[in-house]
């Protein structure tokens, strides 16, 4: 299968729908261990992303991802803006000028995105952040190559999101809480789960 601008557009439109419907849930998660703005920030950001993508015709998947990153940077406001924004901008450079991407190519782009998140957030695995979802999911995608079991990817993302519950936060506002952050699922890991599960759902639809 190939990810063209149509698949990527569908991905972000679907992701926006999920984020909008989970806005209060994300806010609740963030109120427990952060500053309570994750739901609102992402809802605003991805609403603007879909507006931008729907208003423009793309042929280049890199250009689409670049616009996505720029909108997130300017519209999100919290830490997730620069983090997701940098990720998509970096991913865009990998797919620049391409009309479509194979699963392997998209994985390479998202890996560059993960590097950007790590560099920007200076966080690593088990710090109770979005990286706890991104890293294992990309590991899985890399091993899968072009033959990805999308359902397994979604299950893995969900499992890794839930596993952040037992971790102690070492980055971001939650780190101020120390041990009291244990017992709460990380909001960034949750939005990252939505990001991957919607992508995988779109990929599955294309396979049909």
């Amino acid at each position: 299968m190939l990810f063209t601008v149509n698949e990527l557009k569908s991905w972000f439109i679907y992701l926006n729908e999920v984020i909008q419907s989970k806005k209060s849930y994300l806010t609740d998660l963030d109120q427990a261990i952060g500053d309570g703005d994750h739901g609102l920030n992402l809802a605003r950001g991805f609403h603007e992303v879909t507006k931008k993508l729907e208003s423009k015709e793309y042929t280049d998947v890199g250009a689409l991802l670049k616009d996505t990153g720029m909108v997130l940077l300017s519209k999100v406001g919290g830490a997730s803006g620069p983090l997701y924004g940098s990720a998509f901008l970096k991913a865009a450079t990998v797919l620049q000028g391409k009309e479509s991407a194979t699963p392997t190519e998209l994985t390479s782009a998202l890996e560059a995105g993960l590097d950007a998140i790590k560099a920007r957030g200076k966080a690593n695995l088990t710090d109770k952040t979005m990286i706890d979802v991104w890293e294992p999911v990309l590991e899985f995608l890399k091993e899968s190559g072009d033959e990805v079991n999308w359902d397994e990817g979604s299950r893995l993302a969900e499992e890794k999101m839930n596993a952040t519950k037992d971790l102690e936060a070492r980055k971001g506002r939650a780190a101020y809480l120390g041990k009291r952050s244990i017992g709460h699922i990380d909001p960034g890991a949750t939005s990252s789960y939505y990001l991957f599960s919607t992508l995988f759902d779109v990929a599955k639809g294309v396979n049909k």
Partner: protein
Amino acid sequence: MDFVSVVLLSHSNEIVRGLEKLLRQVQSEVALAIAGGTDEGEIGTDVFQVKHAIESVYSKKGVIILFDLGSALLNAEMAIEMLDNQENIVICDAPLVEGAFAAIIESGCGSSLEEVKAAAEGAKQVNKL
């Protein structure tokens, strides 16, 4: 005299507007710019606002940035990366209010970027009681 410029960055526009007033009581010559809140006036920080603030007071002698909480730092770092001239724009590891106070006074003395940064970061060690 050339001065090191100061940029104040907060999640809240009111915080940096108030802080600017406070600092202007003691120093009116040093160029000072603020970035606070999102472009829609919500709580948050906006990388483009930070970039614009830096550009608006850019000085060859240097620009020092003070910020409040975590994600402000991410946007300050991104803003510096977006600007071509990076070497004399620095971010301070200092409390926003006390650090900004120390920075603007030190800058007003004509001090170098390193001295202004050291003064701001020194505010971390000051006992208030």
